[in-house]
């Protein structure tokens, strides 16, 4: 995934602000990238654009070489379901579905149904250590477990990019570390890039690369703890 010269205006008239002021960013396969910055720095706006949910005012985003410019909402949705997995701060699991069904949902929207989809969902839950909780509903799971279900949902379709928005913000330190460890493991796949938006410095040891954003501009980029260790 590549973003070049991304600018984004939000609001209208006198209230309009430029949330992003020309951001260049390329997510590389096999890397966990942290996007860090203070509140209001443009992290979420950038994540929404990279996630093909918002279109930039200026600049281009390419997903596997395919530009999102001029695409309609349905085409963007197709791009998302085929290429991007999402992990949200507040999990966004379906309370009326079991863990397995929550994961299966990501396949169902792609038209993958039946036994194969069920097997893939179980495998994804197994990968995040929840093989014994496939039938549990979100209310029967801890925060950390819910986030692991969300990660399983993000990876089950084997996307080339995973975008995670403050995935540990609602968790205690132990669970946060556990979630980051899972994401770091997922990022080892050379065919997949993982971008984690956070303002939590405790996540730095898990990152291969850290990008700092302030006032809508990337101000610094450095190697993370994982990169230094390797």
């Amino acid at each position, binding site marked *: 995934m590549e973003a070049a010269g991304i600018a984004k205006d939000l609001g209208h008239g006198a209230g309009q602000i430029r949330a992003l002021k020309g951001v260049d960013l390329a997510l590389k396969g096999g890397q966990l990238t942290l996007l860090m910055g203070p509140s209001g720095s443009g992290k979420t706006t950038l994540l929404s654009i990279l996630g093909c*949910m918002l279109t930039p005012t200026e600049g281009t985003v390419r997903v596997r070489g395919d530009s999102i410019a001029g695409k309609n909402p349905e085409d963007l*949705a197709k791009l998302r379901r085929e290429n*991007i*997995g999402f992990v*949200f701060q507040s999990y*966004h699991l379906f309370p009326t*579905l079991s863990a397995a069904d929550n994961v299966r949902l990501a396949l169902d929207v792609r038209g993958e*149904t039946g036994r194969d989809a069920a097997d893939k969902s179980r495998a994804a839950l197994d990968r995040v250590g929840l093989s014994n909780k496939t039938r549990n509903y979100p209310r029967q799971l801890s925060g950390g477990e819910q986030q692991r279900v969300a990660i399983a949902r993000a990876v089950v379709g084997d996307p080339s990019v995973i975008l995670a928005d403050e995935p540990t913000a609602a968790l205690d330190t132990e669970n946060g570390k556990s979630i980051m460890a899972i994401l770091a493991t997922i990022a080892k796949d050379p065919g997949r890039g993982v971008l984690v938006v956070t303002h939590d410095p405790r996540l730095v040891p898990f990152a291969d690369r850290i990008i700092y954003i302030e006032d809508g501009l990337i101000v610094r980029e450095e190697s993370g703890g994982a990169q230094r260790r390797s």
Partner: protein
Amino acid sequence: MPLVFTLAFRNLFHDRLRFIATVIGIVFSIVLVTVQMGLYLGFGQMVTTMIDHASADLWIMPKGTKCFEDPSLLDTRQRSRALSIPGATEAIPVVIGFADWRSPSGSSTPVFVVGSDLRAGGLEPWNLIEGRVESLSTPNAVAVDRTYFDRLGISGLGAQAEIRQQSVRVAAVTDGIRSFTTTPYVFMDVDRARAHTGVPPNKATYFLVRVGKGADVEQVRRNLLASLTDVEVLTPAEFRERSRQFWLFGTGAGAALFAGALLGVIVGTVIVAQTLYSSTKDHLNEFATLRAIGSSRKYIYKVIICQALLSAVIGFSLAYLIGLLVVRMTASGALPIVITPGLTMALFLLTVVMCVVSAIAAIMKVTRIDPAMVFTR
């Protein structure tokens, strides 16, 4: 089970109170439509019951006759002319009219006299439970329905009364021949009917024409129309339709029933739409999540439509059971509610259409959904 269905089912049952309200709305609406349409069918059947039970290939009637109960008269010379038409083997006179029935206790009530040539069997009483049709040929003999015993002030077979100051005797009793006007039918021989209704001996209300084997009914009709003056010649189906049109639409009764049914549909649609809309609003976060993870709009519409269809099936099933109960309760009433397989199918389709139409507001809501909202909630 498809996940779309599971999701729709769970969304629906998640808030049970709201689901119950939806089902009550659908049931109320469909029962109302069932009753109105059942009354329409029941009324439609009752107004043609005499035509349905008459044995005729063609009906000769005075020009402008609007319905079976229309008391206009024909001259009996028309009958002789009718019988001269090749293919017309019989032309049975029928006389109808309102008269006053005086019971042995002295109380009086209006009745509707139906007289036919009983030897020819044109329009005889049916569903006899006591007595025989042949006994109506005996002096003063009449047939009445047991439903009206109280109204007529009699207790059954052999009871004596008076019509137009002339003595009558109940010689046969029927079951279920009820009039939608609530005026009891009294069957008798045609000559006696003339005497009881004041119709002159050379007059009749209808001639029921029977066509000989192999004769072309349409040709006979054309010949009858060419030969007779100031008459109309209708097939039973045409006369049935004319009577229905008059009573249901000429009087406004049908329009009133349809208006009630329409009201039911509107109320049901509004209730279901409101519920689906608020359910969608409650699950907006989930729909936004679906959109964020790449679901097409079609997928989300499927969930909402599935919710609407589930509501329709559950609501209709309950409404149908209540409808059957209402049919049972009104079966022996003055105006029974009739539910036919066709009406059942139509009501089911109506419920489905009503619920799917109700989903439009919810669909419009999710159409405008912004998937990026998942990052801010």
